[in-house]
């Protein structure tokens, strides 16, 4: 078997494994069977090992790191995202994060599989030391943002579940005691997959991930600017990629200010989630735009011929898919145990629940 076939095999196995893992996690999210998550995680590890093999093989036979072409960058991003997820689980049990990460990894690999895979020799513009530094640093920052995103989404779910539980508990007590005066409420415990971690832990995890991702993104933007300056004479030219990278940087800048100003944790969670969406837009911009770089150095196209319109449709498509996954998660989510109980008495309904 030659190297290209070995790489292809590893890639295909990873793609299939990530798909099955994603399905298991979605099932886990709706059925709440712990075993499903364990299996999903084991499969993720398995797929990760095969993808590592595929990427290493490619690096060896192509002679340059596997993060240059669209196919490579997407595959590498998926690999790094699953890697970040695996590392996260070495420290503490965040297996349920696979609900968000594995579908993302699968979609990325799926996109990668639709791209041309033949390794092409590096064109002049890409022959820079910065490509070895700039690209992996940016990808690492995105991986940190994925973790921040997952932690924030789990935070918001848990926050919602807790407040719903608090409301239903309050309503139940009102009905049971038949009085409008609500007795002091206990702290309700969340159920299912969200019971593993507290709001504080999720908030802390999100902050720590941003604390890793934000400086990395800053370094990534600066090295990108240095590279742009040396390759086409302008450290900044408001290309869609540069602009989206800056937007992402600004969103996380707001996040950090929200944290130092002690604004509400759920607001911060929303900001972090948006920041990651923005990072995905940047990434897809790059994925779709890089092929245009092939036209580099020709008088007819000029230096910014690569900033084509393909970026936008791809980005919208991807964000649509991501949004659909989120909606699916929201729809299949089990309601808190008490939420389906009978509504309170008439008089209470008028006054509304007191919390």
């Amino acid at each position, binding site marked *: 078997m030659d190297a290209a076939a070995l790489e292809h095999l590893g890639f295909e196995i990873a793609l299939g494994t990530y798909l099955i893992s994603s399905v298991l996690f979605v099932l886990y999210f709706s059925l709440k069977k712990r075993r499903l998550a364990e299996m999903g995680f084991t499969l993720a590890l398995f797929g990760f090992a095969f993808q590592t093999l595929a990427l290493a093989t490619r690096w060896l036979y192509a002679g340059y790191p596997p993060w240059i072409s669209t196919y490579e960058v997407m595959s590498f991003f998926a690999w790094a995202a699953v890697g970040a997820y695996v590392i996260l689980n070495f420290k503490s049990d965040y297996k349920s994060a696979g609900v968000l990460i594995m579908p993302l990894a699968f979609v990325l690999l799926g996109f990668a599989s639709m791209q041309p895979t033949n390794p092409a020799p590096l064109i002049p513009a890409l022959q820079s030391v910065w490509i070895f530094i700039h690209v992996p640093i940016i990808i690492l920052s995105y991986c940190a943002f994925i973790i921040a995103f997952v932690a924030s989404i789990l935070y918001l779910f848990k926050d919602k579940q807790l407040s719903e539980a608090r409301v239903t508990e309050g309503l139940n007590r009102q009905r049971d005691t038949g009085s409008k005066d609500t007795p002091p409420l206990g702290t309700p415990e969340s159920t299912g997959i969200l019971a593993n971690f507290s709001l504080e832990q999720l908030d802390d995890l999100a902050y720590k991930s941003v604390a890793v991702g934000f*400086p990395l993104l*800053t*370094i990534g933007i600066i090295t990108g600017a240095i590279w742009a300056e*040396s390759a086409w*004479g302008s450290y900044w030219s408001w290309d869609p990629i540069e602009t989206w990278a800056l937007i992402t940087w600004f969103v996380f800048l707001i996040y950090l200010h929200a944290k130092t100003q002690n604004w509400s944790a759920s607001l911060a969670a929303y900001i972090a989630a948006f920041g990651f969406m923005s990072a995905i837009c940047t990434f897809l911009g790059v994925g779709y735009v890089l092929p245009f770089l092939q036209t580099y150095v020709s008088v007819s196209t000029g230096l910014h011929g690569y900033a084509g319109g393909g970026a936008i449709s791809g980005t919208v498509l991807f964000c649509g898919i991501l949004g659909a996954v989120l909606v699916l998660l929201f729809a299949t989510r089990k309601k808190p145990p008490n939420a389906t109980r009978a509504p309170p008495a008439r008089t209470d309904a008028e006054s509304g629940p007191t919390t």
Partner: protein
Amino acid sequence: MNFAIKVLTSTRFAVAVIGLIILVSVVGTLYPGGDVVFGSPWFVALIGILAISTALCSLTRIAPLWRDLRRPQVEVSDRFMQALPYYVRLSGVTLTQVRDSLKGYAIRETMTGSTTFLLAQKGRVGRFGPYVAHFGVLILLLGVAIGAAYGNANPYNNKITVIPEGSSLQVDGFALRLDDFSVSYYNNGAVRDYTATVTVLDGNLIQTHTVTVNGPLTYKGLTFYLYGYGVTESGTAWVAFQIKSTSGVPFVWAGAAVTLVGIMLSLYVPHKRIWIKQSDQSTQLGAISNKSSARFFREIEGVRTKLESRAHRLDHANKSEEI
């Protein structure tokens, strides 16, 4: 006026401006040709407002912070101690032992009557992180402004000039001669790189350089980038160079570096403070950190366990002597 200052120095206002910049940027990338907004005067004004807000924010906050760090409150009330996120009462511990166990902390002490106050601090420099980062951003923006003012005023800036092989181009104070141009290929026929050999002629100074796609030539404030190439009807090779002024660029890099240092300081250097109040009746310890509290509290917990086990041992030894 006071109201204007209050608005401009508030974080909410700065965040609102950033939000507006984000919105405009999103719109700018969504429409083909939408990138004209980034050059429009009102977008520049928006960035300018953000710069002013950043500067004022920092200026109004840095003086109180400096005072606070220079002359910190060492003598604190019991209420203050008890309100700290970490608070314990220690028993049988001497101040000397406490001082020895707090390695790497800057320690201040005062005494009032028979009560001794001790404040141990670490990572004060981290508190300046945000302002260092703000300062860096301002230097960067200054570089951008210098580039816009002087770079664009330079008649050679952004010019694309064609030099045929053997000819030279006269620019401000020196000339650039194209000696040779070559294209190198990979085995499969794809282009590996384009290389132009040029000579700078500046009075008595004659220097030969090579210019490649990722390796432009910078000389006397002008940078020459390889832009295109071709062959004339008479069979002479020519190379097109794009010329850029380097005005302001060093400020941009310096600003970026300072910003990065500031970000690192503010994210990775927590400011830790430990107060100890020892009177005849009791020894109290209270602590606070501006971030990563869990790890800091574990650190103090470790110090405390060590101190108290030693105190316990001493106590035990004294008792056995009595027997």
